[in-house]
């Protein structure tokens, strides 16, 4: 009836898709710059250091992509769940438990050929992650518990379980620090040098898992937009009533989407453990599961966007650590502040910029013609 009166252009289209995150990032950086300035350092010098540390050198790029790999896995995990209408806050815990799966295979079979061990370790990571996601998914689908709450709780449970296992069960004999012994040679992801990058990234932990992450992104895209199951997930995510109307069981979709989500998160250990640390260590996901929420948000839950924003967050992470080395007044927490600002602007305050940008995009071509 009075529909016309409430017309509001909420669709994100055209250039806004690209401009919106860029504008948000610029504002986040500007505010961060102001904070750096308040700390008594030059924002320009800080920005230069960050860029140098993250994207201007081969070492920087290697580390950036290495961190980005973790964020692609967790970002995809959050994104696929979100497409099916589920807000998975538990990627951190799923990554942690998934890493346990990969690590156990690596510890048990590390002496065998990588052709056998690596596929098994990757599969184990995915299965462990999926299993950890299954419990809250089932509770939501069949018992109505809210998945945001349960996945958060499962992060804590995962952390407790892993601490217990590493301190009491898996700790290497005669060791003080809570970590396992090193994996055998068969359980090491091929480093960048082994797959045709020469020794450009030799000083960095970049490894084949980055390729695996890109492959996962492509498969997720195909699954969501090119299969009937992905279609059903999107229907459930957009309109659960229409889903029931179409004969789709929303509960089953929630469970399936969470299984895939958990499996993707569970692959983090492939990069972090098999690719870099070569042992299961305490707290190895290091918050990547939470960064994944921001990555998915900024990437609009689309695989391409997730990869792009994962690389951005990887650069922030790497550039930030570089910054804290070279600028003593700026510590690592500053990176967290910048990330927080990006999340705030991309997520919570997205629509603040949305309307003006749409407006600009509509005017601009007209003016250019006139």
């Amino acid at each position: 009836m009075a529909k016309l009166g409430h017309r509001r252009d909420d669709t994100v289209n055209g250039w806004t898709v690209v401009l919106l995150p860029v504008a948000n990032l610029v504002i986040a950086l500007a505010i961060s710059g102001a904070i750096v300035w308040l700390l008594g350092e030059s924002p320009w010098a800080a920005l230069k250091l960050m860029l140098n540390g993250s994207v201007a050198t081969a070492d920087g790029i290697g580390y950036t992509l290495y961190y980005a790999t973790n964020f692609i896995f967790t970002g995809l995990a959050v994104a696929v769940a979100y497409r099916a209408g589920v807000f998975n806050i538990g990627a951190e815990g799923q990554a942690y438990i998934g890493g346990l799966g990969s690590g156990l295979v690596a510890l048990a079979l590390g002496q065998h050929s990588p052709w056998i061990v690596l596929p098994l370790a990757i599969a184990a990571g995915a299965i462990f992650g999926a299993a950890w996601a299954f419990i809250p998914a089932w509770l939501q689908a069949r018992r109505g518990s809210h998945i945001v709450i349960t996945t958060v709780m499962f992060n804590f449970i995962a952390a407790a379980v892993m601490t217990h296992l590493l301190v009491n069960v898996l700790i290497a004999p005669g060791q003080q620090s809570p970590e396992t012994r090193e994996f055998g040679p068969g359980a090491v992801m091929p480093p960048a040098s082994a797959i045709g990058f020469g020794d450009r990234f030799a000083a960095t932990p970049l490894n084949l898992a980055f390729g695996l992450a890109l492959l996962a992104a492509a498969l997720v895209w195909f699954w969501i937009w090119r299969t009937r199951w992905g279609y059903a997930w999107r229907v459930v995510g957009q309109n659960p009533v229409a889903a029931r109307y179409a004969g789709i069981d929303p509960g089953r979709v929630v469970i399936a989407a969470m299984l895939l989500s958990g499996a993707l998160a569970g692959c983090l250990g492939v990069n972090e453990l098999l690719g870099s640390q070569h042992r299961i260590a305490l707290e190895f996901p290091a918050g990547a599961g939470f960064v994944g929420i921001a990555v998915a948000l900024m990437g609009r839950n689309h695989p391409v966007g997730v990869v792009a924003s994962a690389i951005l967050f990887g650069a922030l992470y790497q550039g930030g650590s570089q910054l804290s080395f070279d600028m003593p007044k700026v510590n690592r927490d500053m990176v967290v502040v910048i990330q927080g600002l990006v999340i705030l602007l991309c997520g919570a305050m997205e629509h603040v910029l949305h309307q003006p940008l749409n407006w600009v995009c509509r005017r601009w071509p007209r003016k250019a013609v006139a």
Partner: protein
Amino acid sequence: MPADAPASAVPALELRHIDKRFGTVQANRDVSLVVAAGSIHGLIGENGAGKSTLMNIAYGVHEPDTGEIWVAGQRRVLGSPAAAIAAGIAMVHQHFMLVPNFTVLENVILGVEGGLTLRARLREARERLAALGRDYELDVPLDALVGELPVGGQQRVEILKALYRRAQILILDEPTAVLTPQETQRLFRMLRRLRDEGKSIVLVTHKLPEIMAVTDRVTVMRQGAVVDEVPTAQTAPRQLAERMVGRPVSMRIEKTPAIPGEPLLEVRQLGIRDDRGIERVRDVSFTVRAGEIVGLAGVAGNGQTELLEAIAGMAPIDRGEIRLCGHDVVREGLDGAKRRALGLAHVPEDRLRTGVVSSFSAEDNLLLGYQDRAPFSRHGILQRTAIREVAAARLREHDVRPAAPTMPIVAFSGGNQQKIVLAREMDMNPRVLLVGQPTRGVDIGAIEAIHRRLVALRDAGKALLVVSVELDEILGLSDRILVMHDGKIAGELRAEEATEERIGRLMAGVADKTHG
């Protein structure tokens, strides 16, 4: 007095040369409307013709881009509904603006309480409302909770509210949509009484018989502009319909007698409870055969929605039996998808909430519910080319405008959205078709096409169960008519013996004596 009020009298409400634009949509174009004092003025037009916009301007919800509003000979600028109420204009919306768990009295004084305590105002209101109730046949129990009143009663509370605020001009937006024919008659009596007392009434509707029954003058709008304004006595429904649509329309549904075949849908002693355990459908039994249209009439909310959803497999049933094409679907545990596979198609009552995914394109909506079938998907992989081709063909075939498969579904008008849903459900060659409110929110021009298609499906040997709150539609389409009241089948009528009167009595829950 009405039809030919003296031209010299000052009109109660006058809208002069109103222009209103929303973005690129010109909702009102140079619209002028004169409502004579002491008259009932009808305003008709298709969806999107600009009626609601115009009335929202008169009620201060929108401000016109250009144009003037005159109330009782004085120019007014209405910046808000409060200003409109102060100027003596009140509006009764289609969806009532009432607090269900307040009493009638409390609802009426809501917003005009005045003073620190309610006591004085309540006493004064009670006296005035009692008087108003007597004068206008508006009796409602003042101490009853509004939520417990029947819909017709709630509507009377809205009107009382307006009169209590000393409104001289009453705008009613589709007031009969939720009423039984008897309640509608009562409303019309009330409106005539109000008119005779000197109030002015604007009746916004799309039902031509109502215009003919109760208005003095009628204004027809099309595409944002006024195309006609005539004394009601000097026009006829067909003429008004043509003015609304802009071309000749057939008001009758052409069809031959049905030749019913084997029973395809059988419902036995069906009982349904909602989430809160309240019984919504009680002991309902009926059969729909191949080659017939069974109409399900009833005031909205008497169990029709729950019944449709249960048959479609969207909601569980409490007890009873549903047989679909020879299968006991409940006992065999066939879910919605499997019932579709048996040949069930379903056009849901609430299109936007249930029938489409509003963020999807037209083509993606055209495979909703059929995403696992050829040609849409093979081995689980969506066949994008085939989907696009089928969609383009269907949109053309069903005269959906524009025939753009990639356009988001929400960008289509209501009538075209409905055509898309109907195209999807009809074209998968169903055996049983459940149709809820086939023409809700659909323009007169498109209604004709939809009715023709439903009859064609019947003639092709499909079994159709049509749920509608539009009695004309039920009477025109159905071969047999079931009337629901309070979750039960209140009666069954053959098309030949059904009249609006008889259906109306059954809808109101009054036993039909003549029914054998």
